């Protein structure tokens, strides 16, 4: 880890953010039937020309395209991501409210999935070829093969409706209106969505850990260690875990970053007011400024996760010199 590497990372991140902004700018401006008209259509049945003109003026759409772009870019960096069509408040405000709820689902799910994936994967890899291993491997393949929202739907129907064990959706009971948000109540609501997200992401960690165990088992030092009569499992676990750590951190980074992908189905089905559901709704009404905001916030997330991973790598494995190209 050194300054120049960090600088490189920052430049990359900056470029990525600019590209995301540029794509959105291009889409908004290329859109046939410009979005002011569309916006007004939602309110009036017609878009009166004088009103459209006034709005174009307010949004600066009557200026040269390059000037618009520069303004847009600057606005994006200033956190001024425009107004959502549906909520009619600044996009960043809407996203800010939702982000925390997505994290409430995502963090426990990811942590649990990582721990469980490492545990089950290590066991499976250690007992490679055994019945348990085969059974575990196959069930993971099956879980991975089921379309995610399908799984979410089934979990909702079975556990919430038929077995009546959990709430059908939302994140708090109506009682919260009077007594305030009770963490236990939220936890009760979060069980099913977290379970679903957990199932989505446990397979990745499992695969990684298992194949790391298998790879490690073939290494010479393991054979040597075994010959010396040391505890095979312990050595395996130690080395396999070490080997798996780097890709694991990358994997978790990507999982966090791709949070919208998984949560879009889960949150919609469980009426959980996070970023995923916001995406779903923005899509339904083609709320482009909001979609743009979601893309940007997700890009920022990837950037943050990458930098976090860079910082974590050396902690996990001191041999790794991040940014060392040689």
């Amino acid at each position, binding site marked *: 880890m050194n300054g120049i590497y960090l600088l490189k990372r920052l430049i990359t991140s900056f470029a990525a953010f600019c590209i995301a902004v540029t794509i959105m700018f291009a889409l908004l401006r290329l859109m046939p*039937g410009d979005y002011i008209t569309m916006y007004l259509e939602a309110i009036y049945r017609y878009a009166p020309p004088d009103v459209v003109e006034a709005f174009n003026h307010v949004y600066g759409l009557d200026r040269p395209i390059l000037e618009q772009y520069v303004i847009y870019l600057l606005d994006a960096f200033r956190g001024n991501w425009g107004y959502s069509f549906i909520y009619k408040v600044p996009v960043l405000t809407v996203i800010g409210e939702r982000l925390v709820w997505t994290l409430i689902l995502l963090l426990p799910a990811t942590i649990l999935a990582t721990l469980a994936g490492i545990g089950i994967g290590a066991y499976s890899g250690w007992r490679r070829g055994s019945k348990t291993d085969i059974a575990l491997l196959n069930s993971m393949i099956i879980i991975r093969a089921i379309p995610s929202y399908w799984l979410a739907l089934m979990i909702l129907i079975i556990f919430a409706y038929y077995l009546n064990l959990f709430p*059908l959706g939302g994140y708090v009971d109506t009682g919260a209106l009077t007594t305030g948000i009770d963490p236990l109540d939220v936890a009760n609501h979060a069980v099913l969505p977290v379970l679903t997200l957990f199932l989505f992401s446990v397979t990745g960690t499992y695969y990684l850990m298992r194949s790391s165990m298998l790879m490690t088992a073939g290494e010479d030092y393991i054979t040597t260690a075994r010959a010396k009569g040391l505890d095979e499992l312990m050595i395996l676990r130690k080395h396999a875990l070490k080997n798996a750590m780097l890709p694991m951190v990358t994997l978790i980074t990507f999982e966090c970053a791709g949070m919208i992908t998984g949560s879009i189905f889960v949150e919609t089905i469980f009426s959980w*007011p996070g970023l995923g559901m916001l995406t779903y709704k923005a899509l339904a009404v083609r709320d482009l400024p909001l979609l743009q905001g979601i893309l940007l916030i997700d890009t920022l997330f990837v950037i943050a996760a990458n930098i976090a991973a860079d910082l974590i790598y050396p902690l996990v494995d001191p041999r790794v010199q991040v940014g060392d190209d040689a």
Partner: protein
Amino acid sequence: MTGRYIQKILVCCAVLLLACCVPAAAGIPGDTDGDTVVSEKELATAILDHLTAGRLSADELSLAAHNSLHLPYGQLVVAVAGDRYLIPATSYIDQKGVPADSLIYEGLVTKLRPKEGGPKEYLGWLAERWESSDDAMTWTFYLVRNAAWHDGTPFTSADVRFTYEYFRDHGNPDAPGAGAYLVNSAIFKNVASVECPDDYTVVFHMKSCAPLFPETLATGPGIAVFPAHIWRDIDLPSTYIDTAHIGTGPFAYGSTIPGTLSKVTAYEGYHGEKPYVREVVTKNYEDEDAQILALRRGDVDFISGEFGLSPRKAEALKDAPGIGICRIPSGGQAFEVAFTSDVYPATIPEFRRALSHAVNRERVCWLVGEGARPTETVFLLPALAGDQVNPATNGLFSYDIAEAKRQLARAGFNLTEENGRPVLLGPDGKPVEITIPLAGKASTNAVDQKIVAVLKEDWEGKLGIRIVETPQVDDSVYLDWIAKTAVHFDGMPGRWHEDIDRLDNFQRSPLGENYYHFDNETFNGLITELKSTADPDKREEIGFELQEILAEEVPCIPVFSQDAFMAYRSDRFVGWDAALLGGGGNIRLFSEIRPASAEVGLRA
């Protein structure tokens, strides 16, 4: 746990009712004669029952007492489809002025849902009554005298004038910052000045003759009046963080948990009829199915989907215990096959007329299911527009393929056959092909696809017109699409079909081109005349004439209108059907619902 509790209560009630030998109707505890009102005598009997025999539990007795004394009781949970229906925790005034379906704010007047075949009715809200000068240049509103804002400040005519001025000043498009522009300011465009002779009288002086001013004010749920004492100092409505939401309505703002719940509580000082429920909680379920599951499980008391429940789901709920269904005739959307009058072949009026006989409404309705009613009137729905519908234009578009073929032939179209399939050749000798864009306003419940499926059978299979469906185009490009294609579908909420004034939908100018690119000089002139005509007879005459032009020109073919379905817990609250069907702005809806089960009191 709750389920068992409900069972217990139900069993108790049943035993009780049997013991009292009262006609077995599920109703309010203590209400022995079944009129849904607990009279003083009944309450007294109930108290005695409770004291001596313990037949009624303390909770039930409390419910009976609240009902008898008209004190708000219990919590009503309403499911909504989308968090935009929740009351936001912050600023409440949006670019429209105020969100629709508000229980908190009131306007001067609101419009009642018309009874089938009946005339238009308005309901005074903050205005007790109103009158206009003969030339409709001056409108005077007499305000209710006992109204007060939720924070106790008395409501006066100054608030009304303030609202007008606020809209006028913030309707300025040059106002700094996005979102500062209040779109509804257009509604006051025609107002020259507002005068307040006293605290309870407001006089609007118009710029030009405005016979329909109350109608304009009642658009949607009605234009809300803002509290002058709060909004006086706020320059930018979009950036103001309002957490109090002070209005004059029957309910005052309670609290919000963003994205999922919001609550209003009964306002004891309300100037009209006080609500019977103490709290109305709105709970967000994104998914209609989740709403239905929640209603069945008893998590919510009222569901309505987004445009009313889907008819089939309403049908399936009918037999569920403790659940009632309300159907509002033509309360949903009305659908039409619309022509773009300047795109070939829709440029040919005979072609449009011919096709008006080639829409199998019965079959479309059969596909759509329960609650779809075929309509053959011009644009206005008889169920809503009542006597404004010109009887002469009724039944002009009957389904008759032979007639369609005849008219097409007369217009120079030639029906031939190719590879065993009919092919229609246009006057130019080329096969006729029509592109139909999907999505847009008719895509609710896939109605557009259902209409296409039926049209394909007739237009393609019998008349030889090739139909090309576009992929589901999104709303942003839909407008462009319909401008380029001869035929599209439209679906509009009922209120667009309830009044002759809505026929301006077909007028060209002053708003520019209409959806149909329809441009008929006589028609345009008549609309302008209608807008400034106050005399009801004269208005009716013009309205009839307008409809005749439309029937002749066929800029669109009406297909069907849909009833709206809503479902509720009939075992917990009573008075649903009357409230829902009785119409009026939604503001009164939840004031009339009465709790019927002690359970709703325990929730709060």
